[in-house]
């Protein structure tokens, strides 16, 4: 062992201090020759010079021994690499422009790729922040021909907990146990989740403070305990450790806080906030009076047990239980499926993300192509040097290696830059991402991402370096030395460069289309008129607890007080109670046969599905829904039983096409089961789901009676233009808190913020795609510029002759620009074909935009061609300025 260490030490010394060892060897050899000389003088009586010559001859070529000696040191290949690196550094230092362009190009390519990869890694590949993430599964449920559901019944979970042995643990997960928590004197809404006691330990998650759950916590009659989520603890309790042991009221029941759990656990619940944790077991479920409650199940597989095997085991147990309860119809028998806990979440954007990742790989490919092209151009300038080195005996393999070392220096530098770009990109993503994708809060440069970055560097080196290296070293010696390669060979080289540029332009074109279509779609969504005025509209959610406000008198008093006080705030125009948010698409609707009393449809009932809302008279004014005809409800309408309604334009047109609907009557159903006749008193504009064109439905509004006020769940507030919406919101919150601090505020936001959040994902993906496409175009333009500029330097001679023979500046420029545009045209045609073949994949992501949208398909070729014009104009200007005298003298 010691020997090994000593040898390793000598190798290292040999590698890093070859000079010292060489010097030692020199000294030894010198001594040898001197002693030999003296010996020869003494024994043979030779003169000093003769003796010395003979000693040298006896020794042989000194250099050869040195080499042999170095080989014996066993570090030859490492020395060669070091030599190559030194050589690469020296030769790269001579062309700084090339180095800067290549390094930046690679940095951008690797940077965006690592950024998007880390998002893919976080959302799809490794979504769970647990050490044993691969073994965590959700027990999902699937009835024949139906969609997968995460809801199963507790009796099944209990059965599996008892009998299955593929699992370390199976836990129940009840995601809806939160509620109204009183902190001090204030009430807040705390979403909560109940889990089986063993789950945290099985996941390897330790409480930040206090303890986790133990099985005694779920025994019948055990003291009620809960755990706080990290965010609630920090936000409401200031992260104080004395929270342990405190008693807390959750939904008017007292619990003792026994611990605080870290935020990472929210991964279990689709990354929705979890503020409190409760224990659950079959005993507590029974205790709550439910033997077959719908819950979710999470399992942790034993190491080495496959998902399939565990699923089979659960199926068998499931079938046994079903069979023991008597015969069932086949279709009623659910199958159990083991899926990732995020399966129900990531499906939303999985396709889009992979598309995005594909796009970034294309950008990287363009970057590699660019660098390869630059290398080819540079190699042409170095043809002589390479030829000389070949003549001096360097083998082709040695030269290819030399060139690859140069490429890897470039990729290495580019990779470091790329990781910086990636770091910056990730910071941009963590601060600026759609709120629904909460996991992106914690996306970062972890081990996996760095490893991926290193793989990218190696791949980049190979792609961008191998082809040029191979190509460069294939030139014939004599041609290169003569300085004028044969025309055919030169043409071949230019053809390769042109092909690379054409491919780059084609890819950029494809990416532009893939970004342009979603952008059009986003613009369409932004342009949709939701039918109400979002600017200046505030929405505040309030949860009136049944226990404190048991009857309509008290509820009504509460709302009246709020309306009066909020209405008195400066800048507030009007206030109404609300029963649901505007953006909720799944509003209560009724379907049935509807009969119009007169008009074209009289006597011919039609089947309609109509959205129904009960609203106060001020509703339309407050929300900014335009009254198209008639009036809103009067106080009489609200008090009495008069069957009057306001309907939307679509419903009016459906029932009474072409005529005014005011004063007309309709009813649900047909005699003898017909409802009462309903008189239309007003027609309002259609209200749609924001950002979703074409989602307009038929809508009817009933007057909001005094008894309906108990249903209210919040307020809509209209503020005057120019008033600070945020300021009014905080005043409203103050009013609510001062009126009754035990009534929790469930939400307080501006309608504009809700609208923009609803478009968060499309906007996010569009911005990313557009950035990528822009980058691709920029890179392709740089590539085109490089090739054209190189062609100009190659043709200086020819251009000089042309100018000498009387060609004008314009002619020369046109000649050069024409070359560039020709390449761009060919690239665009190829890109167009590729785009037309692949846009169908985008259809799912597009709203109101045809995959062959003419605007996109006209704008993009124009953009690509004008970029190409610009990229070739710069070298063209230089070409036009060629001085024929200098150009011709250069030969």
């Amino acid at each position, binding site marked *: 062992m010691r020997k090994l260490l000593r040898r390793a030490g000598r190798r290292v010394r040999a590698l890093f201090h070859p000079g010292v060892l060489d010097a030692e060897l020199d000294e*030894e050899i010198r*001594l*040898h020759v001197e002693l030999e000389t003296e010996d020869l003088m003494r024994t043979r009586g030779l003169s000093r010079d003769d003796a010395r010559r003979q000693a040298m001859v006896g020794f042989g070529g000194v250099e050869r021994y040195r080499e042999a000696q170095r080989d014996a040191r066993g570090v030859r290949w490492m020395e060669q690499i070091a030599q190559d690196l030194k050589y690469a550094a020296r030769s790269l230092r001579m062309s700084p422009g090339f180095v800067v362009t290549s390094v930046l190009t690679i940095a951008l390519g690797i940077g965006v790729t690592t950024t998007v990869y880390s998002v893919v890694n976080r959302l799809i590949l490794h979504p769970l922040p647990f050490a044993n993430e691969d073994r965590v599964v959700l027990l999902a449920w699937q009835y024949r021909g139906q969609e997968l559901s995460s809801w199963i019944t507790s009796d099944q979970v209990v059965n599996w907990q008892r009998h299955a042995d593929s699992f370390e643990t199976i836990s129940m997960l009840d995601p809806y146990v939160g509620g109204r928590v009183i902190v001090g004197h204030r009430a807040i809404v705390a979403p909560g989740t109940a889990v089986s006691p063993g789950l945290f330990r099985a996941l390897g998650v330790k409480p930040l403070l206090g303890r986790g759950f133990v099985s005694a916590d779920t025994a019948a009659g055990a003291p009620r305990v809960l755990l706080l989520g990290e965010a609630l603890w920090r936000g409401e309790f200031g992260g104080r450790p004395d929270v342990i042991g405190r008693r807390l009221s959750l939904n008017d029941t007292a619990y003792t806080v026994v611990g605080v759990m870290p935020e990472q656990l929210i991964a279990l619940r689709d990354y929705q906030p979890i503020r409190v944790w409760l224990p659950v077991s079959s005993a507590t479920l029974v205790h709550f009076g439910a033997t077959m409650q719908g819950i979710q199940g999470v399992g942790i597989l034993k190491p080495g047990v496959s998902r399939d095997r565990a699923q089979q085991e659960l199926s068998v147990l499931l079938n046994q239980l079903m069979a023991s309860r008597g015969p069932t119809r086949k279709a009623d028998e659910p199958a159990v499926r083991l899926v990732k806990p995020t399966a129900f979440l990531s499906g939303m954007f999985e396709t889009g993300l992979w598309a995005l990742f594909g796009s970034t790989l294309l950008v990287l490919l363009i970057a590699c192509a660019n660098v390869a092209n630059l290398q080819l151009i540079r190699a042409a300038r170095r043809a002589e040097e390479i030829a000389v080195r070949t003549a001096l005996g360097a083998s082709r393999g040695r030269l290819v290696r030399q060139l690859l070392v140069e490429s890897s220096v470039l990729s290495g530098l580019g990779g470091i830059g790329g990781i910086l770009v990636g770091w910056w990109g990730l910071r941009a993503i963590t601060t600026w991402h759609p709120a629904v994708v909460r996991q992106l809060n914690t996306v970062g440069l972890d081990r996996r991402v760095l490893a991926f970055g290193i793989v990218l560097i190696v791949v980049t080196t190979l792609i961008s370096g191998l082809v040029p290296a191979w190509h460069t070293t294939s030139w014939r010696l004599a041609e290169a030395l003569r300085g004028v390669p044969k025309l055919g060979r030169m043409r071949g080289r230019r053809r390769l460069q042109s092909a690379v540029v054409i491919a780059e332009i084609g890819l950029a074109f494809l990416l532009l289309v893939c970004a342009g279509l979603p952008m059009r779609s986003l613009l369409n969504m932004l342009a949709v008129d939701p039918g109400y005025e979002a600017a200046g509209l505030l929405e505040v959610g309030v949860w009136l607890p049944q226990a404190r406000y048991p009857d309509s008198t008290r509820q009504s008093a509460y709302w009246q007080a709020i309306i009066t006080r909020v209405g008195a705030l400066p800048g507030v125009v009007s206030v109404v109670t609300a029963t649901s948010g505007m953006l909720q698409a799944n509003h209560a609707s009724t379907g049935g046969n509807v009969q119009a009393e007169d008009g074209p449809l009289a006597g011919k009932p039609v089947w309609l599905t109509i959205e129904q809302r009960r609203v106060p008279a001020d509703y339309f004014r407050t929300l900014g829904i335009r009254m198209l005809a008639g009036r809103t409800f009067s106080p009489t309408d609200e008090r009495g039983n008069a069957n009057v309604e306001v309907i939307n334009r679509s419903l009016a047109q459906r029932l009474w096409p072409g005529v005014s609907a005011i004063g007309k009557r309709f009813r649900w159903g047909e005699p003898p089961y017909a409802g009462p006749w309903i008189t239309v008193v007003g027609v309002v504009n259609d209200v749609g789901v924001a950002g979703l064109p074409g989602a307009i439905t038929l809508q009817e509004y009933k007057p909001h009676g005094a008894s309906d006020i108990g249903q209210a769940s919040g307020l809509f507030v209209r503020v005057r233009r120019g008033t600070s919406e945020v300021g009014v919101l905080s005043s409203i919150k103050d009013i609510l808190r001062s009126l009754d601090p035990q009534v929790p505020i469930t939400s307080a936001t501006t309608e504009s913020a809700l609208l923009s959040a609803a478009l968060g994902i499309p906007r996010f993906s569009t911005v990313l795609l557009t950035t990528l496409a822009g980058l691709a175009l920029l890179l392709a333009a740089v590539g085109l510029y490089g090739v054209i500029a190189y062609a100009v330097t190659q043709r200086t001679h020819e251009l000089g002759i042309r100018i000498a023979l009387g060609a004008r500046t314009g002619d020369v420029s046109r000649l050069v620009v024409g070359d560039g545009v020709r390449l761009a045209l060919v690239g665009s045609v190829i890109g167009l074909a590729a785009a037309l073949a692949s846009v169908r994949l985008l259809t799912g992501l597009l709203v109101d935009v045809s995959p062959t949208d003419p605007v996109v398909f006209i704008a993009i070729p124009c953009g690509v061609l004008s970029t190409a014009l610009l990229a070739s104009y710069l070298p063209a200007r230089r070409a036009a300025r060629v001085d024929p005298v200098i150009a011709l003298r250069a030969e």
Partner: protein
Amino acid sequence: MAERADLLQGTLDLLILKTLVLGPLHGWAISKRLRQLSRDVLDVGQGSLYPALYRLEDKGWIAAEWGTSPEGRRAKIYTLTADGRKHLAAERAEWKLFSAAVDQVLKAT
């Protein structure tokens, strides 16, 4: 047998180790003594001497140290290590066996 494919190299190693049995020597002295001991029959190509010395040092059979030569010059002095001594004994036995075998074959003809 694969190790002894390069017979010459193995032999040179053996000879160098042998010269060092009597005491530490520097490079030139080793070549001189080889010549003396073989009565000038074996003139080791000095060029292969130094790589061989390095190799033996690397294997730990000899140790090198900068010191002063009997001629009063600064020189790298080589000493036989315990490992080297053991190796020499083993190699010597092998060599005897080998040379006896070659002898046998030559006598037979």
